[in-house]
């Protein structure tokens, strides 16, 4: 009787561990790199007046600019999230949490991608209170006050969503949480470049998301450990 019980337990354990192995996505070595640029005249980013919050104002030698259309040299467009919107196998969230900082009365980074159920830690590095308010509609909405020296807020989102984030105290503070179903994503840098690594062979839809302009998609097929290129061009308007 006893031995049968142990056998059953051992079989269950074996099955369980086997399922874990199969649930893991096949690791790939394909990649999609590219550059996000714009055509047209982008709107002028406005300087942010932080004089009412001296502890933040003094952290910036020159005024910080709004970041809704952040551009770089060579018509580069920054803060564009490029991600696999279809064709991905899906994967469990990494155990490593992503970090979001409130520093100098700014959200750093301006756009933070993460995976569904991945840990999110929000820090207040300032000498002033912040009240972070992610304006989620699909996930549960909340806002939390963080006086200086507070421990980080530990949270996560369980559904994919593009969430604007604002501070209930400093109206100019603005950012985005990008909660994705995929582990394959990248954010365009100051030079507009992005790099999505670790793709197994497959047919993918790659989507580029920018906070102010309509998202764009491309089909990309990866065979073997191919390195494919996908560029995105956003049409921008001065107003």
């Amino acid at each position, binding site marked *: 009787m006893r031995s049968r019980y142990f056998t059953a337990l051992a079989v269950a354990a074996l099955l369980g561990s086997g399922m874990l192995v199969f649930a893991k996505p096949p690791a790939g070595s394909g990649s999609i790199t590219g550059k996000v640029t714009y055509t047209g005249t982008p709107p002028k980013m406005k300087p942010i007046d932080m*004089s009412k919050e001296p502890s933040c104002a003094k952290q910036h030698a020159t005024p910080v600019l709004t970041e809704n259309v952040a551009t770089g040299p060579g018509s580069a467009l920054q803060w564009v999230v490029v991600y696999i919107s279809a064709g991905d196998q899906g994967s469990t969230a990494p155990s490593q949490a992503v970090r979001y900082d409130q520093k100098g009365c700014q959200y750093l980074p301006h756009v933070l991608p993460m995976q569904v159920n991945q840990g999110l830690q929000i820090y207040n590095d300032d000498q002033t209170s912040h*009240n972070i308010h992610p304006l989620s509609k699909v996930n549960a909405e909340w806002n939390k006050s963080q006086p200086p020296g507070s421990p980080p807020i530990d949270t996560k989102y369980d559904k994919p969503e593009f969430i604007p984030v604002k501070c209930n105290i400093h*109206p100019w503070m603005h950012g985005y949480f990008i909660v994705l179903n995929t582990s394959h994503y990248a954010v365009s840098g100051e030079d507009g470049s992005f790099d999505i690594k670790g793709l197994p062979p497959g047919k993918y839809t790659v989507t580029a998301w920018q906070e102010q302009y309509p998202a764009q998609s491309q089909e990309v097929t990866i065979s073997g450990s191919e390195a494919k290129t996908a560029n995105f061009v956003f049409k921008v308007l001065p107003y």
Partner: protein
Amino acid sequence: MGKLFAAVVFVITLISVAIFAMHTWWLPIDISTTGPAVDRQMNDTLIGTGVLFLAGQLVLAIFVWGSSNRASGRKIKIFPGGATPLVTAAIILVGLEILTLTFVGSKAWGAIYLAPPAANSLKIDVQAEQFAFYFRYAGPDGQFGALHPDKIDDGSGNYFGLDPANDIAARDDIVVGSLAVPVNRPIELTLHSKDVGHSFYVRELRVQQDFVPGLDIPLHFTATQTGKFEIVCTQLCGLGHYNMKAYLEVMPEDQWEQWLKSQSGQ
């Protein structure tokens, strides 16, 4: 014991009056053309109430001192009843004082809130929101763009809800977080609120006016001294109310014009 109490009342009264008479904690400097009238009114109020305070407290002290050794058993007059004439007289006296202050003071108040702004006033729009003030200048074309509350977007710095894509007048509007004005020039503010009730208060201007969501409230002043002064919200407006402030910068006219030019370049 009664004599000690009388002495304490006497000393406290004298110290209180001395603090006011010596201007120990006095009003901040006045930088506005309408300020002197407000300060005069404040002074008259303090003298009127101060004299009554001094008289009342001294009479109290004298009575306590004089009655301290009397044997008990005296009948105490209560109201209503034996004390009615005394109480009535006190109500009439205090009432008359308050009415007089109101009538005299309405002149100072009217000069600020009822008089129309000067014809050559510089018009500036003010948007209050949790928890900051924003100021809008018409820009080189001298025209304010129309306001569209649905277009308000803090993330792109559109605090007023301008529509520059379709409204040419809005394109050169200058929106900043500090109120810079030329000295000795009449200023006409229009106060808007994005969300809840706020208040515009600059103590040195002796001006205080609430923002009411949905209303465009005019307010005018003329600053007579250059310098940097604090604008604070004096209407409890939420969590960050303590943090809601901006700065008023009064500049010489030429310096202000340069400042405005530098802002419109951005």
